[in-house]
């Protein structure tokens, strides 16, 4: 068990991470703001939501070593995700999806 993080170490990590994420969040926003974008770029921007959310989901539930601890621990999140999908399509409600997702994940953990 490593020692508790000191204030100095906390400050180094916290400030560095805060600066890099701030740059990622604001530099493109100000670089492209108020400009007429070429049409290929505006078309590319429309694909960011589907691509980014699919990437985030894949990052959460898929990994090369996911079945190392057996079939079920790796399959559980995928099964829970399959339960959320029809809820998402039908209700488009974030709250219902959280309830369906966390609820089914919790129940599946009991199996």
């Amino acid at each position: 068990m490593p020692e508790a993080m000191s204030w100095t170490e906390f400050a180094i990590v916290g400030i560095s991470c805060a600066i890099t994420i701030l740059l990622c969040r604001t530099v493109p926003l100000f670089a492209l703001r108020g400009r007429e974008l070429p049409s290929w770029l505006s078309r590319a921007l429309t694909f960011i939501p589907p691509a980014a959310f699919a990437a985030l989901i894949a990052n959460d539930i898929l990994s090369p070593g996911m079945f190392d601890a057996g079939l079920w621990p790796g399959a559980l999140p995928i099964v829970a995700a399959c339960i959320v999908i029809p809820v998402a399509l039908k209700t488009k409600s974030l709250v219902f999806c959280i309830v369906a997702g966390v609820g089914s994940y919790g129940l599946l953990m009991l199996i």
Partner: protein
Amino acid sequence: MNNSQSIKEAFKLALPIMIGYIFLGVPCGLLCQQAGMDALQVFLLSALFYSGAGQYMIPNMWLAGSPLSAIIASVTLVNSRQLLYGASLSRFCSNTKKSLSFLYGATVTDESFAVNLAKFELGNWSVKAATMVNLFSQSCWALANVLGVILGSLLTVPTALASFAMTSIFLCLLFSQKGTLSNIAAAGFAVIGVFVCKLIGLTGPAILIGALVGVAAGMVVAALKGESHA
């Protein structure tokens, strides 16, 4: 919209995100406490850094004995996907004051990006109202994190279960997109991109690279099909 109306609208839009952030924030605070952070530090991190994935990674990597430089580099790589959100949102900030645009951009997260983008595209949505959505979400995130520290050793929450709240939000956001062939290609190739990245050891930038692969695939399919996205 007048002020009180837009505050109400913003709160309504932020509420589901806030619920998700409570699920996710309490265990995050617990984990930070285990790494030796106190309530003030956890609050500062939520106020200045404000990144769900990042705030999980810092204590996790610390507890695993990673050097500070590795923690900073990994967190930065994972958060590089924010570049895409900034690029996507820039077109709505053209007529907004610089200071407000900055505050808005600085407080964007995966979830608030999506709900605000959908509102912007419908029209009748301001950067000011969108910033309120961000700040409501951030306040809830910070409070949940601090609560996690305070509850400390009283509670054990399985983090996998809690973090599935966020996965559920992403699923909802993905399946609320239009089901065009090019969108489906974008999503499918993003999934493949992430998996391949992980397979070859590029775990940090997997989300960004996967998303870029997806965007490229969507554009290729749109060009082949002659789909218009105007």
